[in-house]
């Protein structure tokens, strides 16, 4: 019901958006070159990276040409060799001047015979001119024509394709997205050679005009969700988009939650897998992190390596991750509950040993646990932010001072240190950083509940957390699917990962169209007649 209401308003189409941008500022290009070049210089405040040049060419210098590009965005060598060179010299030396005498339309001649570039656009208004100029294109203007060319000449310095740092794998592709949108789309295209892979680009940000690209597999993705994503991105009215996090925060379903409802990844293979499941990728120029929508809870516990290792190993690892989720969430609170309220639940010997350790500790269990957990969070945050060079200092402080010395000084018990380390390690098992953070936040809530109501508090807290998760939606898809609402066929990729040849259908909670993935027969040994060759060989 609620979902239907959402999708009722999704009638805005892509075309409408394009019309809007064109209409905004349609000042046309003047016919005089000097006027245009001056306009550019004044508008950009004579910025030092702006390069403009005008020169005469043609048989007796009758043709005035002006070019403009931004140094650093455009490839200087390319501009030199393939734009200035042909215009300046080739136009005189080759027979082109004869062509021009025949056909006085210089513009067409230059377009057809002179500019050797694959990506060449005619521009007529100043707004488009600036968009192209600032994207690294070279603008070519010809005296007397109220239009010009934008020749694609991008060639800026960027970080090459490197191994992703956030989601590492042992086995699997080692390339990661970069900061350049075009490189990123090419990484996807190279993996999915299919005409149905559609890429839509929407400029977002009034000041930055950042390109935001939507990638989806047209006949697999749910059109309702695609429309919804597009509509939400079109609604964004902001001055700048510097990272995909900006988009993520502005298009999520519900803001009052600690759980991420949109997934992100740095790995092209993970992005491709998402596209093939019918999800939508949102790429933002300037960041290697792409967004995956819609996202469900279990997805944050899947690593792309799960599909590259054997099914049994992956299934075990996946269960280990859920177990670690549980550990990271409630170990400290369970310790607090047991030591404060339910001592009788422990075996006597363990109880005595715990009591002996806690004897010298001046704080109640809750204070002790919160203190240590906060200390750990401080260490972790310092580890992320500090300069690499002082890394060893932090580890010494962390391990020796806060671990050993604190126990010896009798401020915390040794058990507490073990528990905090265990939760810390367990929370890093989660393949997704933002889900791990949510769990860490909730851990403190659970600790307080445990200190007030013991085990009862933990159980009620768990029920409330699950209720909250069950009420979340990501682009209309229930967050806990396929566990609740239960879809039996989609259990193949939740707690266990069944062998690839068994994954016959795509997850049905995202999209129902073209749901069959494969028809591979299950692998089996060759039948006897073909096996004879082998056995004969053995006999010899």
């Amino acid at each position, binding site marked *: 019901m609620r979902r239907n209401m959402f999708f009722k308003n999704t009638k805005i189409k892509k075309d409408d958006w394009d019309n809007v941008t064109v209409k905004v500022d349609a000042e046309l290009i003047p016919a005089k070159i000097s006027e245009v070049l001056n306009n550019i210089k004044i508008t950009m405040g004579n910025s030092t990276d702006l390069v403009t040049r005008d020169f005469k060419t043609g048989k007796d210098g009758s043709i005035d040409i002006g070019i403009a590009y931004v140094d650093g965005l455009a490839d200087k060598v390319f501009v030199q060799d393939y734009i200035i060179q042909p215009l300046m010299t080739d136009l005189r030396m080759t027979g082109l001047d004869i062509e021009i005498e025949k056909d006085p339309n210089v513009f067409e001649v230059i377009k057809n015979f002179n500019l050797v570039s694959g990506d060449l656009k005619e521009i007529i208004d100043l707004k488009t001119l600036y968009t192209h100029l600032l994207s690294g294109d070279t603008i070519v203007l010809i005296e007397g024509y109220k239009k010009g060319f934008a020749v694609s000449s991008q060639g800026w310095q960027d970080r090459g394709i490197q191994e992703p740092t956030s989601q590492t794998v042992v086995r699997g592709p080692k390339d990661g997205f970069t900061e350049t949108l075009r490189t990123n789309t090419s990484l996807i295209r190279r993996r999915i050679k299919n005409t149905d892979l559609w890429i839509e680009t929407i400029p977002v940000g009034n000041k930055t005009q950042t390109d935001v690209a939507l990638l989806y597999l047209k006949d697999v993705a749910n059109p309702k969700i695609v429309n919804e994503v597009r509509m939400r991105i079109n609604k964004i009215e902001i001055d700048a988009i510097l990272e995909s996090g900006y988009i993520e925060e502005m298009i999520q379903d519900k803001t009052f939650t600690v759980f991420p409802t949109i997934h992100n990844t740095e790995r092209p293979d993970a992005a491709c897998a998402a596209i093939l499941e019918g999800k939508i990728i949102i790429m933002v120029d300037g960041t290697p992190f792409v967004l995956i929508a819609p996202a469900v809870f279990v997805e944050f516990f899947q690593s792309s390596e799960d599909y590259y290792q054997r099914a049994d190993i992956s299934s075990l690892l996946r269960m280990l991750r859920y177990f670690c989720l549980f550990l990271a969430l409630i170990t400290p609170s369970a310790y607090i509950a047991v030591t404060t*309220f339910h001592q009788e639940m422990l075996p006597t010997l363990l109880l005595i040993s715990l009591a002996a350790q806690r004897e010298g500790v001046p704080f109640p269990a809750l204070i002790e646990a919160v203190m240590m957990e906060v200390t750990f969070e401080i260490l972790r945050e310092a580890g992320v932010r500090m300069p690499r060079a002082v890394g060893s200092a932090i580890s010494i402080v962390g391990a020796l001072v806060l671990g050993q010395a604190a126990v010896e000084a009798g401020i915390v018990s040794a058990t507490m240190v073990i528990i905090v380390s265990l939760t810390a390690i367990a929370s890093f098992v989660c393949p997704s950083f933002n889900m791990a953070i949510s769990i860490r936040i909730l851990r403190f809530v659970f600790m307080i509940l445990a200190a007030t*109501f013991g*085990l*009862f508090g933990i159980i*009620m807290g768990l029920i409330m957390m*699950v*209720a909250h998760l069950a009420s979340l939606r990501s682009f209309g898809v229930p967050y806990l699917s396929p566990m*609740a609402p239960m879809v039996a066929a989609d259990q193949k990729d939740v707690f266990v990962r069944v062998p690839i040849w068994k994954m016959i259908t795509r997850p049905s909670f995202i999209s129902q169209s073209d749901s069959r993935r494969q028809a591979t027969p299950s692998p089996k040994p060759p039948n006897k007649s073909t096996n004879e060759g082998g056995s004969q060989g053995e006999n010899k």
Partner: protein
Amino acid sequence: MERISQYQLFVLTVFFQVGTTIIFGFGAAAGRDAWIVTIISLLVGIFVISIYLFLSYLNPGLTLVEWFPAQFGKWIGTPIAWLYPLLFLYEGGRILNDIKYLTTTIILVDTPFLAIILFFLLVVAYLQYCGIEVIARIGEIFFPYFLVMILGSVVLILVSDILRVDNLLPVLKNGWKPILASTFPLGASQGFAQSLELAMIWLLVSTSHKEIVKTTLFATVFSGLLILITVLMIITGIGEFFYKIESFPMFALVSKVNIGGIIKNLDAFAVLLFIISAFFKLSLHLFFAIRGFQILTKVESSRKLIIPITIISIYLGYSVSSNYEEHIKVAIEVFPYNLWIMLLWILPFALLIVTLIKRAIKNRKKEMAQAKE
């Protein structure tokens, strides 16, 4: 309108029927023959639930509280319909008292029970805001764990070798009389005839009526078997005497588990089981109460009623029972007789008769009209 799936109906029905029985035991008055009580109650329960399902078939598109005005007319039907939300509220209050006594005797001895009730109701109220879809979804999430915990405790109890089949003997020592006495009204009503309340959500299930009938009856058999297993384990585990006098027999049983001195004190297990099932039962009681109030007061959104109903529940949780002995005495000797017999047996049967007569008259008229033509 919110919708729930067939599987969700199954889960909610099982949670509702098993409810607090899993800790308090079933048919304890019949002593070692309680398992016979369970079987008979299950059979009677199946019969009476079939009748409720038949009633919902005869009143398509209507919930429990709308049946009576529809069949008895506005002036007689409405007051009768109003009895049900009040009953649900009272039963919700009783569940709160169960929790109050269990938690303060076993796990949170020093905590004031008002704090426990408030915290419990806070979570329940949050669920009411989320709606029945979310209640059903958490049911789906917790159901497997619930089953695993029950099965786990069964396995541990079997392994620790505390069950004595001799405890069941002699069968029927006191004849059928005590068995029948504890079957009706208590045994057959507790959980089974109580399922009349589920008539508030049968409408929301997104399948045909036939499937609802199948699912509900299957769930009834399923929870009947769960209760039977529990009862058998408790009787063979702790014997008739303790079954009769223990406040929480299941609890007494699990605390006897001891496997090689390592696995013992499984009290936490039992408490977990109890809190989860009590939680679902209370959430459903309050959901049905709120739903009933909403339909009968014709308020557009049930959200406005959540806070008032929760406040009433806090008061009921505080005042329904003044001590545990009275609480149990009411549950066994008073409450089934003065409320359940009337509301779960007499009124639905009266409704069935009236509905069938009205239908027959209608058909007759139709036939007559056709004959005239």
